[in-house]
């Protein structure tokens, strides 16, 4: 050991204690030591100088490193933050599950004997449906009745020997088995689930993996010969899986052993003690109950489910009847009802309402549904609903269906051609359909007064729809009275077709047509009077020259057909001692009369017309009303013509001309009026009072007396009523 040097002090095996001891041995005296101290001191200074120099030299590097370190720190912090975020996201995803986070609540609810059975059933179905959509290839598993989703989560499957992760799967615990689906993370966003296997609960054993090296939160499924290990995302998930599995297994066991309903089982999800009262007790009690109810009765809810699902509605109905019969018999013999019985009864009721719902759906009017099958297609559902004592509902739906069919049928009739063609088509479509519907209705709902009244209301409503449409189409100013008459007769004829089914809606049709018809008649009257006045102004009062014998003969024949013999008026070869005006009026009026009488005929047909005459004066019958209007109209029209003659007569001084005029008046007031009255009487069995009055009022004209001196009592409508 000697002088202290940098290499000595800096060597790796330098021991200060040992060095100092050796120094004190070798160097004796204060001076020596002081020198050494100074030497060490200078060494220290030199070292610190060196360090400074080094720092200066590597200053930039030093700063960079410091920066790098702080950078790294912030990155680490960010990473930590990101990971926390991911964790919370995953947690919330797990909690959400695919069916919403109410899964636990639902499971609890399933075990508590709540009376909202239907709601639960609904939720159960929804959950299964959601699973069915989510996991491809699992549809065959999801249709089983009473299958419930107890738990589900993503799991990691591990190699059973090597404990290394194999793949990610989605596990679903159903009430009777475990479904494993492979999860394919094909891209970052979507995960597709592919059904892999379904283990029946009875064929698997569950093992809680307590210790598997560094693998935590795993459980094992022993499904001979497979043995699979699944790792859960967290200990809570694993606990849930084990608890639910245990619960499901116990339930299943008790079901198998006791043939007893699930709902009776102890509510607590985690039963650990082996001394569970419900397990030991039920045996004797159950044996009795099983013997009481036949097997088919116990299975009836499931059978019903199957029938409804396969749309074997008749079978379902037969089963319901059978169950009902049994129920009634059972209640009669047994005063108290046991829980199995009441439970099954309740389930049967529930299935019944499901069946009704399904059938109602069948009947509902759906725009997507083709009505091609027509009412025939509805027969089955209607019949079944009637058998289920739901005739009111089925009737309502049936009629709704009819309405929509009728509407569609009417829309198909195009508004083309003349009004009468259109009305012919439309009314034919409407009433033919209504006839068919009535037939169907009577077939579907025989002997059901309440349904029949619903039908009458429906028919009346449909008729109203039709008439309002008809009025809109036909009663326009452009339509002539003849066309109108034709149309009305057509519609009435169609309407009468319904009479043979016992539904007489003619009165309603008449009622709704009355006011527009009255208006139309008045319009026609005004038009006629206008044209009479127009022609009166142009009347030259000269006999009519037909210019040829054949033309004369044709005219004579024409008038003979309507009951007028014109032979007395013929002079020469082709002269007629009537004015053109008179002849054309005759033609016009007879046509008008025809129309009116046709209307009247149609109007009166459904009334026993014998009595008509007698009740005429005292009863304000609807038809009488119309008759009155017709009468009034005829009176005014005829009067207008007579007035013209009278007026001309008054102004005419020339005797020859007067004779000619009187002859015309005679034709109008005697010949024509008689013919008109005859026609009128043929239809109504009495003469038109208006025209009788007209004749008496105007006989003076025939004697060449004008009405100026006479006070003519005006035609008053009240007189006849």
């Amino acid at each position, binding site marked *: 050991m000697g002088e202290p040097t940098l290499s000595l002090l800096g060597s790796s095996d330098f021991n200060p204690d040992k060095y100092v001891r050796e120094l004190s041995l070798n160097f004796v005296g204060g001076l020596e030591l002081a020198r050494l101290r100074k030497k060490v001191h200078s060494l220290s200074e030199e070292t610190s100088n060196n360090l400074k120099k080094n720092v200066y030299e590597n200053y930039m590097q030093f700063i960079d490193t410091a920066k790098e370190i702080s950078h790294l720190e912030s990155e680490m912090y960010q990473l930590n933050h990101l990971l926390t975020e991911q964790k919370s996201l995953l947690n919330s995803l797990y909690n959400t599950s695919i069916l919403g986070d109410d899964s636990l609540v639902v499971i609890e609810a399933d075990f508590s004997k709540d009376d909202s059975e239907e709601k639960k059933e609904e939720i159960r179905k929804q959950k299964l449906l959601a699973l069915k959509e989510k996991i491809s290839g699992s549809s065959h598993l999801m249709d089983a009745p009473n299958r419930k989703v107890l738990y589900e989560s993503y799991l990691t499957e591990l190699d059973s*020997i*090597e*404990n*290394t992760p194999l793949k990610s799967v989605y596990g679903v615990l159903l009430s009777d088995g475990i479904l494993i689906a492979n999860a394919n993370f094909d891209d970052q966003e979507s995960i597709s689930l592919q059904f892999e296997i379904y283990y029946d609960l*009875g*064929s*698997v*054993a*569950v*093992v*809680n*993996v*307590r*210790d*598997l*090296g*560094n693998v935590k939160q795993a459980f*094992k499924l*022993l*499904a*001979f*010969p497979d*043995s699979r290990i699944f790792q859960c995302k967290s200990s809570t998930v694993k606990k849930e899986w*084990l608890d639910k599995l*245990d619960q499901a*297994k*116990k339930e299943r*066991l008790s079901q*198998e*052993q006791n043939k007893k309903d699930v709902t009776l089982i102890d509510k607590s999800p985690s039963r*650990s*003690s*082996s001394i*569970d009262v419900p*397990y030991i007790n039920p045996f004797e009690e159950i044996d009795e109950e099983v013997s009481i109810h036949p097997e088919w009765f116990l299975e009836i809810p499931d059978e019903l489910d199957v029938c409804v699902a396969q749309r074997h509605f008749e079978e379902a109905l037969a089963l319901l009847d059978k169950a009902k019969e049994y129920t009634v018999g059972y209640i009669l013999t047994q005063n108290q009802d046991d829980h199995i019985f009441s439970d099954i009864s309740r389930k049967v009721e529930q299935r019944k309402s499901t069946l009704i719902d399904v059938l109602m759906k069948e009947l509902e009017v759906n725009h997507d549904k083709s009505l091609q099958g027509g009412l025939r297609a509805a027969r089955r559902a209607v019949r079944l609903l009637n058998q289920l004592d739901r005739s009111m509902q089925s009737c309502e739906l049936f009629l709704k269906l009819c309405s929509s069919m009728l509407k569609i049928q009417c829309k198909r009739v195009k508004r083309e051609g003349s009004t009468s063609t259109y009305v012919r088509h439309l009314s034919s479509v409407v009433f033919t359909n209504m006839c068919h519907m009535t037939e169907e209705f009577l077939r579907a709902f025989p002997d059901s007064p309440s349904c029949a009244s619903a039908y009458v209301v429906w028919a009346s409503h449909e008729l109203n729809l039709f008439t309002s449409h008809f009025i809109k189409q036909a009663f326009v100013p452009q339509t002539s009275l003849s066309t109108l008459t034709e149309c009305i007769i057509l519609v009435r004829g169609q309407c009468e077709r319904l009479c043979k089914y016992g539904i007489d809606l003619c009165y309603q049709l008449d009622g709704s047509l009355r006011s527009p018809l009255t208006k139309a008649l008045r319009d026609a009257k005004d038009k006629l009077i206008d044209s009479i006045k127009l022609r009166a102004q142009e009347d030259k009062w000269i006999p009519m020259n037909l210019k040829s014998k054949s033309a004369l003969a044709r005219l004579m024949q024409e008038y003979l057909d309507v009951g007028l013999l014109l032979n007395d008026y013929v002079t020469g070869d082709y002269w007629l001692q009537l004015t053109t005006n008179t002849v054309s009026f005759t033609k016009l009026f007879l046509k008008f009369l025809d129309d009116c009488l046709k209307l009247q005929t149609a109007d009166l047909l459904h009334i026993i017309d014998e009595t008509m005459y007698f009740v005429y004066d005292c009863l304000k019958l609807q038809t009488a009303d119309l008759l009155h209007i017709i009468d009034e109209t005829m009176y005014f029209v005829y009067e207008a013509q007579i007035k013209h003659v009278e007026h001309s007569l008054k102004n005419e001084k020339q005797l020859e001309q007067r004779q000619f005029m009187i002859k015309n008046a005679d034709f109008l007031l005697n010949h024509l009026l008689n013919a008109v009255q005859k026609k009128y009487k043929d239809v109504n069995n009495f003469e038109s009072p208006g025209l009788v009055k007209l004749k008496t009022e105007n006989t003076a004209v025939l004697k060449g007396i004008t009405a100026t001196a006479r006070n003519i009592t005006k035609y008053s409508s009240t007189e006849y009523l």
Partner: protein
Amino acid sequence: MAQCGGVRVHQNQFIMSKKPTVQPALHKVIMVGSGGVGKSALTLQFMYDEFVEDYEPTKADSYRKKILLDGEDVQIDILDTAGQEDYAAIRDHYFRSGEGFLCIFSITEDESFQATQEFREQILRVKNDENIPFLLVGNKCDLEDKRKVSFQEASERARQWGVPYVETSAKTREHVDKVFFDLMREIRARKMEENKANNGRGKDRKKKSIKSFLFCYKH
């Protein structure tokens, strides 16, 4: 602590070399017996050198441990089953996966001893094999003053079955390792036999386990 480290080492080895032959032999042991006889206590004592006083009924727990059996690395997989009656019907599924059984009763409870007969029968039925590695274990031998089942009685039954009888105490750890190790030796011997038989017949149904076993054997 040492155990954890050991497993970790094994895992790392495994990850580094993915050949299946590197994997130590795996022996599957199943604990059976009535409820409360100490199956879980024995298992936990073997696994963690701990005696768990609190009683909580087991459903089905599995454990795995890497141990040195006669100088050879092996893994033991212990399936601790439920003793409770309500699990009786599903025991079959558990028993199928077992290669060897520790049938445990409590020497302080005659009923549990009587129940071993039933367990034995069920195991034989499920495994369909008279020579399945099997040990009859009388637990709680520290409670000599409460003894209800005599050693003679129990060994007589074991003799009838042609299996060893061992008395253990999960509390004092007496014979705990012995029963597990004895059983594993039996399982190992059994597998060797099977292997020979299979080789002789040219069957390689259990290729993987045989390979791993061969590896172990050469060691």
